[in-house]
């Protein structure tokens, strides 16, 4: 095709007038306490955006022609205006993909979702067996997620997604995840475990080993139908690139809006260093996206730093900013999970004092303000399904 010469990836690197899609965490409230929660969710923030403010964001996204939003949390279905907001977005042609732990996805709500266009549902599990899943997401959470999947299937929702964060413990169950997805006619979606939020504390223990990552890369190459949200692009340094854009889109083509309206460059770095502004400010979200100093600087050419001499830099672009930041590595150096082991060397050499440490965030705390150990056993509200 005739173009004016610049490769598309470079165009994206310089940023677009509006994001292609964005992540919107609707609430920090959550009835689970997953050990890898990247937003350290648990307690609702009292400053949470009101229903009117949330609708105003949808108006802005529609004006900017953002095709869809990835809604998460916390558990987004805990927001009382959840269905109103989803309906409002869809009516404005802003598609909704939302992630849920499934605990509130009753048969009645599944039927309601099945009637809506442009809504995708992702039910999260982090183990193909209850034992593997519940050690990360809390006791009873696997059964709850399966019930939600059953409800979606019974409601003829169509093709929903099953979302899995790949860990050292569940990476051996990839074929079993595929089988579960197949049994529902669902799509499997695997994403990378980032050391964000409560994951800062558990990443060392739970992130896949180097050998497991190589296995995962080959598994994914053979299964282009498995969705990844482009999250494993650091593995593309192993050879043929994985499907997707294979670049870090933080502040360039994606960003995150959190429950209080703060806008961050990346869905996986809720940290003041990557805070670009707030939608409650003058000019709303569009002004933050187009004018914030942080986003402008991210759209400048980035230094390859310590990776400049590596022949695979073009393939992996130095990996994931979030993974580097939360493991205390310099942003212009190798990813902690660099497939050539440069990350492990960097981790061994890092200045421990520079490690940002775990954010308590919105984790549930006891009356002394101490975070409650996770995963916390949860009791689910049960409901007759007859």
């Amino acid at each position, binding site marked *: 095709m*005739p173009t004016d010469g610049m490769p598309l990836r470079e*165009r994206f690197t310089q940023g677009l007038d509006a994001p*292609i899609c964005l*992540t919107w965490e609707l609430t920090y409230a959550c009835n689970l306490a997953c050990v890898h929660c990247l937003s350290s969710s648990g307690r609702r923030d009292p400053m949470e955006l009101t229903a009117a403010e949330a609708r105003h964001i949808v108006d802005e996204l529609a004006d900017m022609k953002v095709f869809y939003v990835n809604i998460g949390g916390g558990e987004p279905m805990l927001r009382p205006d959840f269905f109103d907001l989803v309906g409002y977005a869809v009516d404005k042609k802003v*598609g909704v993909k939302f992630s849920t732990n499934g605990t509130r996805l009753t048969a009645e709500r599944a039927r309601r979702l099945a009637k809506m266009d442009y809504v995708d549902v992702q039910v999260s599990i982090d183990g193909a067996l209850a034992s593997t899943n519940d050690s990360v997401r809390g006791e009873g959470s696997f059964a709850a997620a399966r019930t939600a999947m059953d409800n979606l299937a019974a409601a003829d929702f169509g093709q929903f997604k099953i979302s899995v964060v790949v860990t050292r413990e569940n990476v051996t169950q990839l074929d079993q995840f595929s089988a579960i997805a197949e049994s529902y006619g669902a799509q499997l979606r695997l994403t990378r475990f980032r050391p964000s939020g409560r994951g800062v504390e558990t990443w060392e223990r739970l992130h896949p080993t180097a050998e497991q990552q190589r296995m995962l890369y080959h598994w994914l190459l053979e299964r282009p139908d498995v969705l990844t949200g482009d999250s494993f692009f650091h593995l593309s340094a192993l050879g043929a690139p994985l*499907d997707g854009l294979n670049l870090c889109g933080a502040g360039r083509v994606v960003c995150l809006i959190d429950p209080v309206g703060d806008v961050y460059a990346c869905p996986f770095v809720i940290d003041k260093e990557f805070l670009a502004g707030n939608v409650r400010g003058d000019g709303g979200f569009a002004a933050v996206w187009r004018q914030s100093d942080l986003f402008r600087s991210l759209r400048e050419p980035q230094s390859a730093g310590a990776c400049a001499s590596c022949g695979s830099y073009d393939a992996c672009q130095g990996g994931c900013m979030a993974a580097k930041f939360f493991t205390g590595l310099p942003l212009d150096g190798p990813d902690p999970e660099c497939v050539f082991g440069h990350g492990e060397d960097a981790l061994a050499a890092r200045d421990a004092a520079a490690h940002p440490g775990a954010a308590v965030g919105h984790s549930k705390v006891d009356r002394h303000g101490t975070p409650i150990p996770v995963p916390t056993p949860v009791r689910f509200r049960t409901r007759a399904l007859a």
Partner: protein
Amino acid sequence: MSVTDERVEAPAADFDPDRAWRVHPQVALRDESFGALAYHYGTRRLLFLKSRALVDLVSALDRFENATAAIEALVPEGERAQYTRALARLAKSEVIDAH
């Protein structure tokens, strides 16, 4: 980060330029400096139209009796074959449909 779950490219397929074509009713185009982004709300696929001239052609399709007429009116002679191939790719991925 997570740009998108959608597939980026689609292979060329049979495309009949003598039929009338239009932007698929479930597709939204968003102008960009490089051309346009196209999102299909039905297949949930994101695609890229990599030149302004292609965006203009695609947007104008429904004003012509068939795709050949649109190409002849809007594309210089030496470039028509590649634009026909581009339309074939867009037909395969349902960015445009025959009507």
